C-alpha cells in the first residue's frame, strides 16, 4: 500500500510521520510516498510505476524507516540503506528491496531483541523526489555540545554527506535571535546571510511545532530551503548549561568539541618533527590530528585545532581523555604564541587570555 508522504502518520514510522507533519504544516519537503508494509504486502510493486510518474521527477531518493525507531540517533543505521539518485522504476524497486533487507537482517533482529521490541518489526520505505542541492547540512535548534539556546547550522556545498566527515570542516553559523555568528573563514560562504536567517527561522518554527529542540537535515536547491529530516534532541538543560569561563579577552572562537575549561601554556605543533617540543600540561595547538598525535592529546591540558569538527579524530580522542577541546578555530597557529597562557573553554568554544584572578591561584 502506498501512502502519500503528506498523509504519513505514526503507523509509517517516526521519520515519515515527521516529514508528513512538516508537509501538512506547509514546510518545503520533497514530494514522495511511503510504502507502508513492503514485507507483508507485495502489492506496492504494481502501484509504484504510476506513483513515480505522478511525482514527475528524473531522480529519486529511497530511505527505510523502522517503526520501532523514535526518530532519534538510532536512525544513523538508516544511512546505510539509503539510495540516492535512482532514476528508473526498476532501480527504485531494487532500492526498496535493498532497504527492506538491510532492515530485516540479523543485526536488526538482534537489535530489536536487545531493546525489547518484537523482532520482525514492520518496516516502511520512503520514496521521494531527489533534490540536487547547491548546499546541504544539518541544523540544531540547541547547541549540541554546550546546550546553549541558539540555532547551530553546519553546511557544505553539494550533498550534505560531507558535513559529518571529520576531515572536512563544515562552514558553521550560530543564530542567536537575529544575530548571526560565522562562518568565520576567508573562503566563500556556501550560504547567504538571508539563507542562514531563513534556516534559523525555519528551525525555530519546527521546534515550536514539535515542542522540543530538533536536529534537522536540510538542503538548498533551486533557491528553496528543503527539509529532509527532523528528529528530537532531548537534552536536560540543567546538565548542559556550560560552566561560564572567567572573563578574559577572547582570542579565538571555534567549535566546542569536548567540554570543560582548562588553563595552560600554548604549544604550537606544526608536525611530527615538533613532537619533542611538547610538554605535559601544554595546550596543544595544531592544524589537525591523526593517530600519531594520540600521546600528545593524552597529556595535553587542552586542545585547539584549526580544522575539523565535532566528529573529528581530535574531538573523539579529547572527549575520551576528558580534555577540553576547541576545533575549527581558524588561524589558531598564527594568532596564538608559544608559551602564552590561555584559557580554553571546550563548552563555549573559546580561547581567552588569562585573567588576573587566575594568575593568583
Amino acid at each position: 500500500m502506498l501512502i502519500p508522504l503528506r498523509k504519513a502518520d505514526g503507523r509509517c514510522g517516526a521519520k515519515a510521520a515527521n516529514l508528513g507533519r512538516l508537509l501538512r504544516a506547509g514546510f518545503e519537503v520533497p514530494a514522495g510516498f511511503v510504502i507502508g508494509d513492503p514485507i507483508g504486502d507485495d502489492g506496492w510493486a504494481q502501484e509504484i510505476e504510476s506513483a513515480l510518474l505522478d511525482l514527475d521527477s528524473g531522480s529519486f531518493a529511497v530511505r527505510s524507516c523502522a517503526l520501532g525507531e523514535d526518530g532519534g540517533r538510532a536512525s544513523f543505521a538508516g544511512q546505510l540503506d539509503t539510495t540516492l539518485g535512482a532514476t528508473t522504476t526498476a532501480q527504485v524497486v531494487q532500492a526498496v528491496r535493498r532497504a527492506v533487507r538491510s532492515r530485516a537482517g540479523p543485526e536488526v533482529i538482534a537489535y530489536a531483541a536487545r531493546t525489547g521490541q518484537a523482532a520482525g518489526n514492520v518496516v516502511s520505505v520512503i520514496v521521494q523526489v531527489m533534490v540536487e542541492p547547491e548546499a546541504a547540512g544539518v541544523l540544531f535548534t540547541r547547541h549540541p555540545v554546550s546546550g546553549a539556546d541558539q540555532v547551530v547550522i553546519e553546511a557544505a556545498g553539494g550533498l550534505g554527506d560531507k558535513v559529518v566527515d571529520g576531515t572536512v570542516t563544515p562552514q558553521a553559523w550560530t543564530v542567536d535571535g537575529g544575530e548571526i555568528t560565522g562562518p568565520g573563514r576567508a573562503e566563500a560562504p556556501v550560504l547567504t546571510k538571508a539563507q542562514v536567517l531563513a534556516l534559523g527561522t525555519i528551525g525555530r518554527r519546527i521546534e515550536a511545532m514539535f515542542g522540543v529542540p530538533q536536529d534537522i537535515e536540510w538542503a538548498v536547491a533551486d533557491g528553496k530551503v528543503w527539509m529532509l529530516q527532523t528528529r528530537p534532541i532531548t537534552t536536560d538543560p540543567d546538565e548542559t548549561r556550560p560552566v561560564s569561563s572567567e572573563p578574559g579577552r577572547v582570542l579565538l572562537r571555534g567549535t566546542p568539541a569536548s567540554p570543560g575549561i582548562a588553563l595552560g601554556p600554548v604549544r604550537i605543533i606544526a608536525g611530527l618533527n615538533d613532537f619533542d617540543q611538547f610538554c605535559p600540561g601544554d595546550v596543544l595547538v595544531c592544524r589537525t590530528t591523526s593517530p600519531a598525535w594520540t600521546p600528545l592529546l593524552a597529556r595535553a591540558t587542552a586542545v585547539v585545532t584549526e580544522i575539523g569538527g565535532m566528529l573529528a579524530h581530535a574531538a573523539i580522542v579529547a572527549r575520551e581523555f576528558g580534555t577540553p577541546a576547541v576545533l575549527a578555530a581558524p588561524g589558531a597557529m598564527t594568532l596564538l604564541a608559544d608559551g602564552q597562557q590561555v584559557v580554553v573553554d571546550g563548552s563555549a568554544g573559546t580561547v581567552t587570555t588569562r585573567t588576573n584572578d587566575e594568575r593568583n591561584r
Partner: protein
Amino acid sequence: MSHHTSADVLVLHAVRTLGYGDTPRIAERVGLPEDEAREHLLDAQAYGWATYSSHAGEGGWSLTEAGRAQGERLLAAELDGVGARAVVEEVYRDFLPLNDVVAAACTAWQLAAMGIGQPTMTLAETIATLQGPATALAGVEARLTSHLDRFAGYHHRFTSALTKAGHEPAWITGTDRDSCHRVWFELHEDLIATLGLAR
C-alpha cells in the same frame, strides 16, 4: 594473486597507522618476531624515518616527517606496481560514508555517556548502529586484500571490539585498547597513507 608487502615496509607503515607504539605492539601488528621488527625499526631510525621517545616512563616509536614521506613513496610504488590504485580509490570513496556513520555514532555515544548532547543514544543503539559499518567492512577489506594482503585484519578487530563493547563500553572509543574507534581510525589512516592524501 594478492601482493605480499615486504617486512621493512610493513614495519614502517605500522608505525604510521598505529601512530605511536612500542616494539612488541608493532611486532604483533605486523606478525613478525620482536627481534626482527626491532631490526627494521632501528634501520628506520638510522635513516631518520622513525624516532623513539618516552612519555611518562613508557617508550614508543613514531614517524618523522621524512619517515611519513618515505612511507607514502613506498606505498605508492607498491600500489601502482600491483595496479590497484583505482580499486583503492573506489574503496576510499565507499569508506567515507561509513566513516561518517562511525564517527557520528562514537560522538553521540560519548556525548550521551557524558550526560550532554543526546542521552537517547544508548549503548545498545550505539552497537546496533556500528553493526552496519562492521558488516560493510568485511566487503571493504575483501576488496583491498584481493590486491594487497597487508589490509587483512581490520574487520576481525572491529567486530571483536564491537562484541566486547556489549559488556564493557570502553571498547567503543577507548584509546587504551583496540576499540572500535581506534581500529576504524587506523584503517582511515591506512587508506590516506596508501593514497598519499592530505588530512
